C-alpha cells in the first residue's frame, strides 16, 4: 500500500500578527513594576525581552497548533511556575521513533540530532515531522527578527 503523499503546510501569518503579539507582550512587561525599577539589572531586562520575543512568536505562529510552539510555551510556563493545562496529545514512544529514523544515513542523523536540539520540541519527532517543523520554525523566526529590527529602527534616535 503506497503511503499517501501529504503536502506540507508551512504557511506563516503576516508580519503584523507577529508585531501585534510582540508589542502586547512588551506592554505587559512594561506595566509590571519590576521591569522599570532602577535596581533591575540590564541583563535581567534583556532576558525578559528575549523570552517575550520567543513567547509572542510562538503565540503568533499558531499557539498550540504546532509542536514547536507548544513546546516553547510549555517551557516558558514551566519557568514561570504557572499552572498551564495543555491538551494531552497521543505521543508515540520516543525510542521507537528514534529506531525508525536511525535507519538512514549516519551523517544525516548526526545533523538531524543537532537540528533536534535547536528546534524546540524536536526531541520526540520523526525526521519527516522534524523537517516540517523546522521549515515553519525558520519562517516564524525570520519574521520575528524582521519585526524586532523594525522596532529597533523606529526607536533609535535619528
Amino acid at each position: 500500500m503506497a503511503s499517501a503523499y501529504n503536502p506540507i503546510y508551512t504557511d506563516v501569518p503576516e508580519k503584523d500578527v507577529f508585531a501585534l503579539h510582540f508589542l502586547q507582550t512588551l506592554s505587559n512587561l512594561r506595566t509590571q513594576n519590576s521591569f522599570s525599577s532602577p535596581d533591575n539589572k540590564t541583563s535581567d531586562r534583556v532576558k525578559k525581552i528575549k523570552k517575550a520575543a520567543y513567547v509572542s512568536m510562538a503565540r503568533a505562529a499558531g499557539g498550540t497548533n504546532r509542536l514547536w510552539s507548544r513546546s516553547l510555551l510549555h517551557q516558558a510556563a514551566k519557568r514561570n511556575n504557572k499552572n498551564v493545562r495543555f491538551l494531552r496529545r497521543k505521543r508515540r514512544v520516543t525510542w521507537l521513533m528514534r529506531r525508525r529514523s536511525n535507519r538512514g544515513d549516519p551523517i544525516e542523523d548526526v545533523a538531524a540530532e543537532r537540528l533536534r536540539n535547536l528546534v524546540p520540541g524536536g526531541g520526540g519527532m520523526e525526521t519527516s515531522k522534524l523537517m516540517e517543523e523546522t521549515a515553519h520554525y525558520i519562517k516564524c523566526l525570520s519574521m520575528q527578527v524582521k519585526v524586532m529590527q523594525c522596532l529597533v529602527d523606529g526607536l533609535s534616535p535619528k
Partner: protein
Amino acid sequence: MSNRRSRQSSSAPRISDDQIIDLVTKLRQILPEIGQRRRSDKVSASKVLQETCNYIRNLNREVDNLSERLAQLLESVDEDSPQAAVIRSLLM
C-alpha cells in the same frame, strides 16, 4: 502498541522521496545561500541540514542582539520624546 512493532518494516510513516524533495526545495527557498551551486538532482541532505542548523543559530543570535538593543532603547526613552509617543500610539 504491539501493532506498531509489526509495522516497523512497512512503508507507512517512512518519509517518501516526494516528501524529501518537497522539503528540501522548501528549505532551499528559505535558506539564503545554497541551491544554485548544485547541478545534480541528488541533494546532499546532510549539507541542507547543516545549513539549516547554522541558519537557526544565526537567527537566535540576531534575536539576542536585537533584544539587547531593545532593552537599552526602551529604558532610555523618556516620557516626552517622540519615541515615547510612537510607542504609545503603537501600544494603544
